[in-house]
């Protein structure tokens, strides 16, 4: 069993290596100085304290949505609604950050709580539709993304917009609402601590509680779970509530931690990236940390590359597509696993 146990890890590593090779190939085709450009892409994120900070700052929202999506995927729910919820909860938290005045730590707490609860309620809708009437949660959640974006943009343009600023941005948040920075010289904020705690809690929930067990069983085989007496409809609604709560908290934390006013005029994309993070993490809460850091690292690498060389940062979306296709490909390297199994069987 020893080698086969590590098969998934080796496979993930192989996918990442292939994706990086493709990245190098694209860079060599496009860039005038391919070696220098690859160097920037790979090493520049580590070059200064600020850049390392950038990687961690970007990993925070990815951890939130990655965690939310991995719980949904674990329950075998193909719901991509974290995208819209992340955005809309950001708007909700901004409203409270602008219009409320509360002392100290209470202000962000209230704003984040509001964003999280709104996120949970919004997420429950596709969940209830799925659990009660088997409506395809993928399509409803994707439609919800567009609806939430439209409503959020409307709120920004008609109710929150600061006419004095020469851009489509909201009024400034109250100083008391913003999350404090925890590492001097970077913009890493207390959201990091919040998300790490959340990840540990999710891990305990999934593997140490009865609800978590029911969630995993429902995901593995809904029919079987139902026949063994679990209320799968309740499980499906519960996982939607939790995932929406986490995604909503992510949007609120991101807005209050990174910005001084609300300024997203398009969906920020962290929800769909969350699906990628969840897949890389094999839907394991603790692995979400590493996969979010990896994705943030190549993102920041691509951004720096776009700034310092002649290759545009959009290259990274090609790499991400390759990673998704190969990671979710059950048959990829399967022949190798089979050969290993055969060998081990013979040895035994």
């Amino acid at each position, binding site marked *: 069993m020893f080698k086969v146990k590590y098969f998934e890890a080796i496979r993930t590593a192989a996918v990442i290596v292939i994706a990086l090779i493709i990245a190098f190939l694209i860079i060599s085709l496009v860039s005038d100085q391919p070696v220098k450009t690859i160097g920037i892409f790979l090493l520049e994120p580590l070059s200064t304290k600020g850049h390392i900070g950038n990687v961690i700052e970007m990993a925070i929202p990815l951890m939130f949505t990655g965690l939310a999506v991995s719980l949904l995927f674990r329950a075998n729910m193909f719901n991509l609604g974290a995208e819209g919820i992340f955005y809309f909860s950001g708007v909700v938290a901004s409203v409270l950050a602008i219009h409320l005045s509360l002392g100290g730590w209470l202000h962000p707490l209230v704003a984040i709580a509001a964003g999280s609860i709104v996120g949970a309620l919004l997420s429950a809708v596709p969940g209830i539709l799925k659990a009660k009437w088997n409506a395809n949660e993928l399509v409803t959640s994707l439609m919800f993304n567009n609806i939430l974006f*439209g409503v959020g943009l409307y709120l920004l343009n008609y109710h929150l917009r600061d006419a004095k600023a020469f851009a489509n941005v909201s009024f400034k948040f109250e100083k008391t609402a913003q999350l404090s920075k925890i590492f001097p010289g970077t913009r890493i904020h207390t959201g990091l601590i919040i998300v790490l705690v959340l990840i540990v809690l999710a891990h305990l929930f999934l593997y140490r509680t009865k609800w978590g067990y029911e969630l995993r069983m429902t995901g593995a085989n809904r029919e079987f779970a139902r026949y063994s007496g679990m209320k799968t409809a309740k499980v499906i609604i519960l996982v939607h509530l939790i995932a929406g709560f986490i995604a909503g908290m992510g949007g609120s934390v991101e807005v209050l931690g990174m910005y001084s006013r609300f300024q997203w005029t398009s969906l920020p994309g962290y929800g769909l990236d969350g699906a990628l993070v969840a897949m890389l993490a094999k839907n394991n809460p603790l692995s979400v940390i590493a996969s979010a850091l990896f994705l943030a690292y190549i993102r920041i690498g691509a951004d720096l590359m776009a700034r310092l060389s002649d290759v545009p940062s959009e290259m990274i979306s090609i790499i991400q597509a390759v990673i998704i296709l190969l990671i979710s490909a059950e048959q990829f390297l399967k022949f190798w696993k089979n050969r290993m199994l055969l060998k081990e069987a013979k040895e035994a």
Partner: protein
Amino acid sequence: MNSLLNVILTTDFAFSVLRVTTPILFAALGALISNRAGIINIGMEGIMLVSALTGVIVSAYTHSAWVGLLGAVLSGTLIAGILAFFTLKFKTHIILGGVAINMFASGGTVFILYLLSGDKGSSTSLASKVLPSVEIPLLKDIPVLGPILSGHHILTYLSILSVLVVYYLLNRTPLGLRIRSVGENPHAAQSVGVSVIKIQYTALLLSGFFASLGGAYMSMGYLSLFTRDMVAGRGWIAIAAESMGRSTTVGTALTSLLFGAADALANALQVLKIPAELIATLPYVATVIGLIIYAVSETRKKNKKLKTTTSK
């Protein structure tokens, strides 16, 4: 309210409904074929985007709109082929495969656009060609119908023709029969000697073919250039139209028209003082409502069947 009626009850409005329905209809027909073979192709959006860009690039370099169209169709079908290869051969999850295609397309098109034109927003610097619009003789002289039905883009007529073609393909040809049988019961189809994989490959390639016609229309008809993310959710609306149309050709065509009307209405409503941001959500709200109605009625039907069988 009066000004709204004045806008809607015009031949211009009816004309614009057909104009905005075209890309949705093409993609919905594509979604129909793959769904009938038991595969949800959610890469529609990405396929449309890639073919829209390829149409612009190829037509700009060859100075021919028709070669551009050919390029668009080939590229879109190729993307569908890649998706088919991964899902059928490597067993990539079809939904995640679709997500990958969309992710690839939204960034990849900007990447290629930037390399070729130095611009990340639109293809203004590429001298791309546009496919012609067609006046239909005799028809164009009929009052009311003429201004509505004549003078459309050639791909709009092709999309209407495609409804008939897809209907014939699915219901009257051996291939259509195989596609439907694979979708309904792959094991049974396999046991009578139908190659499930081959049929699913064919269905996915056909879905890519129709989606890419929709994409080509976006950049060589609806607009005369490529702009980033120009498909703007039409691929998703097409998937919703197919599922609201209950996977029948006629139903899919009619719901596509409904979404086209909602879209055109959203454009027309801008004369009223309703915020554009909210109006833009209308097609999606309509989709959710449609899906709920469908899901509820399906569940009721199933429960009724269950009750009658148990009471026996």
